[in-house]
């Protein structure tokens, strides 16, 4: 075969030996180049690039060791086998041959059969090396291609994800630059009333399959949070979307949390992530346990979107982490685990050092740094963020409708499962003059609606929320009563009037409940600073005028522009 024909360089100072070797090699069908010393050999190699070299060790002018070294250097990564021709027998000399880059020896007197066999063996080795190099270069090209694709994907993703509020002053987070392709996802956004939503997700697998679900999840999260949808609604939509688009066996372990600065509450849903923690200012901790299957596993009708609610005081922090921390593995295949994490919490004195202390502990445990962990911490702050929560709308430059009224009545069946707030907010934001105060509008709507529903329709006692135990009882009862709600209604009355100069919205929220002693409750709220107190005073602060009529069953508020 033509491809078996090699160019073989023979460097040998004895003419008879050179002639004998050349003849043997040429008879095998190879092309032969001959050199009488090392210097000639190096020059010939540079010129002709033979594939194999037979090199006498001791030669005048330049010996075989030096020539072999130079030839190997010129050959670079390609394997050019050098077979040393030698009658040297001392092991020291043989070692020198190897050190100079020799691949094999051939002893004098020459044996044709052995020489031919050695040339064939070296040729196999040379081809193997060439194949390896070729494949390595191919892999390198593929990898480069993959990385550039990932860069593009990441850039697109960052456009989506960076519309969030991870840079808010009360958030501290840590995420590796490869997080997206490790399946880790970290999102944060305000809803229209300034509540902060945080999502930490961990998709199964690695690489593009793990990253692909992040985009739709982020879009649902940002889109729905901005429109004022509740956590259960967002969770349902995220689960349904992932279930629809991801193949079976791919899912997203996630914790979704919302922090309300007005109500000073934390609402959490954890499906498949390690315990998160509510770290209290007094050093105690509340574990936020996974109570659900991950997102994208269950069909919509089986999905459980129930959240847990915790009171959260200024100085308290929400802490979430991915399993990269707990599953950091040391050389003995031990996992970092929960106990070591809790020990870091216990030893922590300065909250702002916590991340560093966790990283240091993991690094010390593994003996090297771990680069695929995600952590986020969200602190409770005083209200003051409200103005910084922009409500998204597309400004068409139109004034919008300026003279209209509408009333809506939502009855028990609807109240059980439907959240009317995003719908009402969208409607009201058609009025251009109201867009600048979308956040305040949503907050007042949300406050009056939850008052009407919880205290009016369902007759829940807000004084329960005075301590932490009562607090969780309150939200448990709220869930139970809502689930079996049979009677009652909440009505919204909207009245919009305006002209080119300005206008006003008159808002009424009416419920089917028994009403309350308005004067007494308002007076009480001035005094209280419990978990329950904020609602009505917030409404009074945010709206132009507000009042309660018909024994507390109808709340009125006005917005002007």
């Amino acid at each position, binding site marked *: 075969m033509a491809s078996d024909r090699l160019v073989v360089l023979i460097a040998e*100072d*004895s*003419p*008879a*030996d050179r*002639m*004998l070797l050349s*003849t*043997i090699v040429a*008879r095998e069908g190879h092309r032969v180049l001959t050199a009488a010393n090392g210097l000639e050999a190096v020059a010939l190699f540079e010129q002709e690039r033979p594939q194999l070299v037979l090199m*006498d060790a*001791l030669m*005048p002018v330049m010996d075989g060791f030096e020539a072999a070294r130079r030839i190997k250097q010129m050959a670079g990564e390609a394997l050019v086998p050098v077979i040393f021709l030698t*009658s040297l027998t001392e092991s020291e000399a043989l070692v020198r041959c190897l050190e100079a880059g020799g691949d094999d020896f051939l002893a*004098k*007197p*020459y044996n*044709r059969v052995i020489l031919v066999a050695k040339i064939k063996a070296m040729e196999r080795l040379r081809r193997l090396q060439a194949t390896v190099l070729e494949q390595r270069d191919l892999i390198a090209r593929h990898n480069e291609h993959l990385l550039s694709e990932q860069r593009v994907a990441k850039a697109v993703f960052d456009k989506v994800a960076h519309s969030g509020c991870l840079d808010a002053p009360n958030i501290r987070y840590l995420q590796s630059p490869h997080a997206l392709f490790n399946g880790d996802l970290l999102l944060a956004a305000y809803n229209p009333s300034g509540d902060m939503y945080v999502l930490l997700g961990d998709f199964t697998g690695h690489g593009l399959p793990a990253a692909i679900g992040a985009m739709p999840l982020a879009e649902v999260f940002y889109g729905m949070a901005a429109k004022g949808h509740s956590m259960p609604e967002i969770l349902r939509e995220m689960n349904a979307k992932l279930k629809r688009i991801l193949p079976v066996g791919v899912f997203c372990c996630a914790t979704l949390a919302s922090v309300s600065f007005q109500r000073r509450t934390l609402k959490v849903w954890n499906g498949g992530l390690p315990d998160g923690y509510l770290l209290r200012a007094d050093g105690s901790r509340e574990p936020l346990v996974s109570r659900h299957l991950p997102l994208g596993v269950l069909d919509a009708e089986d999905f459980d979107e129930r959240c847990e609610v915790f009171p959260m005081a200024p100085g308290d922090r929400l802490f979430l982490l991915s399993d990269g921390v707990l599953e950091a593995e040391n050389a003995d295949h031990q996992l970092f685990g929960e106990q070591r994490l809790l020990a870091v919490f216990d030893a922590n004195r300065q909250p702002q050092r916590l991340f560093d202390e966790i990283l240091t502990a993991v690094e010390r445990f593994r003996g090297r740094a771990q680069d695929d962990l995600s952590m986020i911490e969200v602190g409770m702050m005083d209200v003051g963020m409200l103005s910084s929560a922009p409500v998204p709308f597309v400004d068409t430059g139109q004034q919008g409708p300026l003279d209209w009224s509408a009333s809506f009545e939502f009855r028990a069946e609807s109240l059980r499962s439907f959240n009317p707030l995003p719908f009402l907010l969208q409607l009201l934001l058609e009025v251009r003059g109201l867009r600048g105060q979308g956040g305040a509008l949503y907050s007042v709507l949300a406050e009056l609606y939850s008052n009407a529903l919880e205290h009016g329709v369902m007759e829940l006692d807000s004084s329960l929320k005075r301590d932490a135990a009562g607090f969780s009882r309150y939200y448990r009862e709220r869930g139970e009563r809502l689930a079996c709600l049979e009677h009652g209604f909440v009505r919204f009355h909207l009245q919009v009037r305006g002209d080119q100069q300005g206008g006003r919205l008159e808002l009424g929220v009416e419920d089917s409940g028994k009403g309350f002693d308005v004067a007494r409750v308002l007076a009480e709220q001035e005094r209280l600073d419990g978990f329950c107190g904020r609602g009505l005073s917030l409404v009074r602060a945010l709206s132009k005028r507000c009042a309660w009529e018909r024994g507390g069953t109808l709340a009125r508020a006005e917005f002007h522009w």
Partner: protein
Amino acid sequence: MDDQHLDNAVLLGLQEVMEDEYPQLLETFINDSRDRLGTLQQALGAADAQTLRLAAHSFKGSCSNMGAPLLAGLCRQLEDAARRECLEEVPALLERIAAEFAIVSIRLKGELQRHRFG
């Protein structure tokens, strides 16, 4: 054939490999060896142990390839003496090498004759 000067089996092998170029190989060896003997003499005159060693080494290699075991053995002794820098052993060895080469060269010339006309 039991011959310390020339191994007939080796010669037969060479003949098989070289085919038509066999005589040329023998001539090349004879001429090259003559040159090497000259080199060795000069190196002895100059008391150049390194040149002696290299030339003896190379000569030894060709002798073994051509099937001249006695001559190869003498070259090895010379190489050894040069490595040890015992130049006083060299003149006697060189004399024995010259004598042995004379025998080998006569035998090879006979081989050439036989090959050409036989």
